[in-house]
């Protein structure tokens, strides 16, 4: 997600946490809406730094990773789609902006967005506070679980981050 549109701003306001002290735990927040929906969701990641948490009933939560949220800096604006909306994999289902960057959120899978997190629109700061919990963007009824095989698991994503050292 941050690939295409990452800031070329000449006015980038730095985020207040120095890089070296950042700690990337790109895991779901325990006891959050995402985890309390059902037990042991399967979590996958995209190269655009989206996460998707799929529950047993093929309902999935989608958001941006901790890594992405930190790279973005203070979020100033979030847009989500109206629901329900049919979506294909790689279609935009929202956008997120900070002072220095603007990015689309792409659906990692095909399905129907059955709920969007309206709370984010009013409190974009949640994206920085709890990107992998309270700040989910969309709830999707997925129609083709096989697509998940294309995505990275947590280990692969961490390796991907290291390798690309964004």
């Amino acid at each position, binding site marked *: 997600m941050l690939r295409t549109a990452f800031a070329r*701003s*000449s*006015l*980038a306001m730095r985020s207040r946490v*120095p890089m070296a002290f950042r700690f990337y735990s790109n895991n779901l927040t325990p006891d959050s809406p995402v985890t309390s929906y059902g037990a042991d969701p399967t979590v996958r990641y995209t190269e655009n730094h989206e996460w998707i948490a799929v529950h047993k009933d093929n309902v999935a939560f989608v958001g941006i990773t901790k890594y992405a949220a930190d790279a973005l800096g203070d979020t100033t604006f979030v847009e989500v789609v109206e629901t329900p909306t049919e979506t294909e994999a790689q279609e935009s289902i929202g956008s997120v902006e900070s002072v*220095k960057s*603007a990015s689309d959120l792409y659906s990692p899978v095909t399905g129907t967005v059955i709920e969007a997190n309206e709370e984010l629109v009013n409190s974009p*700061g949640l994206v920085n506070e709890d990107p992998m919990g309270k700040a989910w963007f969309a709830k999707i009824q997925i129609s083709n679980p096989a697509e998940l095989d294309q995505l990275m698991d947590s280990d692969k994503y961490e390796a991907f981050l290291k390798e690309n050292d964004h």
Partner: protein
Amino acid sequence: MFRARTALAARLAMRTRVVMPARSLSTNALDPLDTYKRRHNGVSDKKDIDAMLKVANSPSMDEFVKSVVPEDLLFQRPLAIEPAKGFSETELLARLKEIASKNKVLRSFIGRGYYNTLLPLVIQRNLLENPQWYTSYTPYQPEISQGRLESLINYQTLVTELTGMDVANASLLDEATAAAEAMIMSFVGLNRKKPIYYVDESVYPQTRAVLETRASGLGIQVKYGLPEDNNFEGSCGALIQYPAANGSIGEWKATADAIHAAGGTFTVAADLMALTIIEPPSTFGADIVVGTTQRFGVPMGYGGPHAAYFAVKDSVKRKLPGRIVGKSKDRLGNVAYRLALQTREQHIRREKATSNICTAQALLANISAFYAVYHGPEGLRKIAERINSLTTALAQVISEKYEVLNKSWFDTLTVSVPSADAIMTDALSKGINLYKIDDKTVSVSLDESVTTEDFAALCELFGGKAPEAVDYAVSVPCPRTSKYLQQPVFNKYHSETELLRYMTQLQSKDLSLANSMIPLGSCTMKLNATVQMVPITWPEFGNLHPFAPLDQTKGYQELITELENDLADITGFAATSLQPNSGAQGEFTGLQAIKAYLKSKGEGKRNICLIPVSAHGTNPASAAMCGMKVVPIKCTPQGELDLTDLEAKAEKHKDDLAAIMITYPSTFGVFEPTVKKAIDIVHSHGGQVYMDGANMNAQIGLTSPGDIGADVCHLNLHKTFCIPHGGGGPGVGPICVRSHLAPFLPAHHEIELPARELGQAIEAVSAAPWGSAGILPIPWAYIKLMGGAGLKSATEIALLSANYMKERLANHYKVAYVNNQGRCAHEFIIDLRPFKALGVEAIDIAKRLQDYSFHAPTMSWPVAGTLMVEPTESESLVELDRFCDAMIAIREEIKEIEDGKVAYTDSVLAHAPHNQEDLLLGEWNRVYSREKAAFPVPNLKERKFWPSVTRVDDTYGDTNLFCTCDPVEAHADLD
């Protein structure tokens, strides 16, 4: 040298021990002494040049240049510019007077979007002619730009108040392109699914032409006239003019409702002066209102520059094109202005941006804002009432003999006459220009400049007699009932004393070239010489209407032709179009010309545009606006174009390849040796080569886009050719092309442009035939003052200055990119990412430079976490050193953090910049002293520029968007 002199001179020199100056002044006493080159170049003393060459490790300028520019690119042709040695300042003004005298300034009642205006002299002298206002850059460093930011907020407030809309931007290039932005916003707003766009007959033809050009790339179909049954299904919206081109004031509520019923966007192009007495478009359902603020004090200038405005409802503010000034707060919680919501713009969104606008019209917007501050709501209303009353009185006189075709009006009457030519000729004999609509119709537009004599002459022309007196009597179908401009700023500076002090107060908050160097990479903040600025306010250049008959503008024609030829010579190309109003608009124009050329060869399907990832955001945005598909090309870690990637992508797209856009020297500030190879690859795969000329300051007289092998380039006359940046515009972005592209340069519907007779020309890209003609005397003068050799010397000094600074700073910082001989071009990048682990980032150093009274270099572009330094040729060695010393002193401050002596969060860097309030009020409990904060180096005691606020909070500003000036007197503290 000594031998060549005459024996007498030699003897004289010996006897009186006259030492010939080291500078290259003439030995012939008849030659003038007020030569320009040595005033333009900051370094011209041989001693200084030698010292700099020494630091740069080069034996001579020639050797130095060869180590910077690849030898196979260095050309041997001297520039053909006349006079070769350049004019002296006196000679230049004499020549310009001669040219100016060939322009005939008649009384213009042409109207059509351009009106005479009375620029209050206090504003002319203290803003338009004042380097503190015209030499500053776009306010990217808000702490040292609060003056013009406040004035731009006033401008935005002026626009929102008069249009009745919620949010306005800080200007666009002209009314026609503003209308095009509205069309595109309407189209994109509906996900590009409804391609039809209706343009009413009321709209000026020059606007229609530009809409046509801009629609073509995106697949929008422009339809003239609104649908008969008011059914707008399938369309994304419509544009109307208010008042209409024929003068009438329409009723638009039903149209607005019908457009909304079909889901479309209703755009109104409105005359702000009229809006002071007629109902604003917000009252009848406008979603977007656009127009020009030209008649608010900005001279017609034969077409420009003028500020266009753009205003919308709050709900779509995030889709607004161009810069928006918003209110935020600084570290101390005080009100501070800044550029808001930059994530909308091309530099972040690139090919996804819907607009490529970058440089806009800040200076002109500020003139209009001050015009409104000066007159206030009462004054503006009075001006409009006078115009309208006189128009009504004129209509009565004309109606006795002729038919006035429009039944309502603000300032324009369309008159049916037996022979338009006859009345036009009669008008000419009275020194008057009217507008001919067709053989039997003319129109006449009044403005604030109309005198008793003008009015009498007009009455006489139409066979009547002027009344002794005319009552103030507003006669419009929908008089304005709502109040406007009640904010204090528009109601307290109406005496000249008060206004002057307000202007001075604002300008003192802004750092401009009158204070110190502005080393912004890619921006070329060189000298904007007074001698170049003087002519632009001469009436012979300022007071011509762009549609005045060509035989009245022979002076302009001569100047334009000379400038076009000189620019073609400098770029190594065959032809020039001066129509584009900015670099970004030049890019769009150049790519459109390429498309038209390819189409003419039957290769219209080519639509891939290769763009290096290092390119400026306007490049991909312009390509996307032309309907091209952007394919990014990688750069190597050394910052060069990745030829392997280029070759692969060119091969992959060989059937569809339209163009590549390259910047040379690259945006990383290096002359890449492989540029010819890259050009060959693209040509051999059927593509054209577009060169972004932002960096032309490194090429002139040494090499050229044409000589390197490109097909078209744009120039930023506001960078390389001395047009001042105006605090964010004006700009002029001409394109120069190889001969095969010449037939495709843009045309203009009103004025037949030379060399476009082949019928292949693209439609206009600007409202006026030569864009911002009014400021063309500036680049013309620069070229004529320098002469061919002088221009070359400027390039050499620019390259040397950059390399000198690079050498000095390389001992303290990492310099990111150099060529294989260790040279940068005219600019270089300091890599600050190594300090990130300490918490120190580019922004800290940028802000700390303000404490040293400097404007930061370009920050985080083209590489995040860096600063790009471009000194230009106009800075003295003393100033170059002063900047280097500041950077070196800051490096010591970073070292204190590195050494663990201070924590980043306590450091002077984290708190920078410091204003007076920060240092004087309250208890001082920082780990550093006040003296260190404000006077870290001794020379600041003599010469200190104070930031007026502390660091501005960007996040607060973007989450709490507020874009107009305060309705109440006192600024309540935020938070």
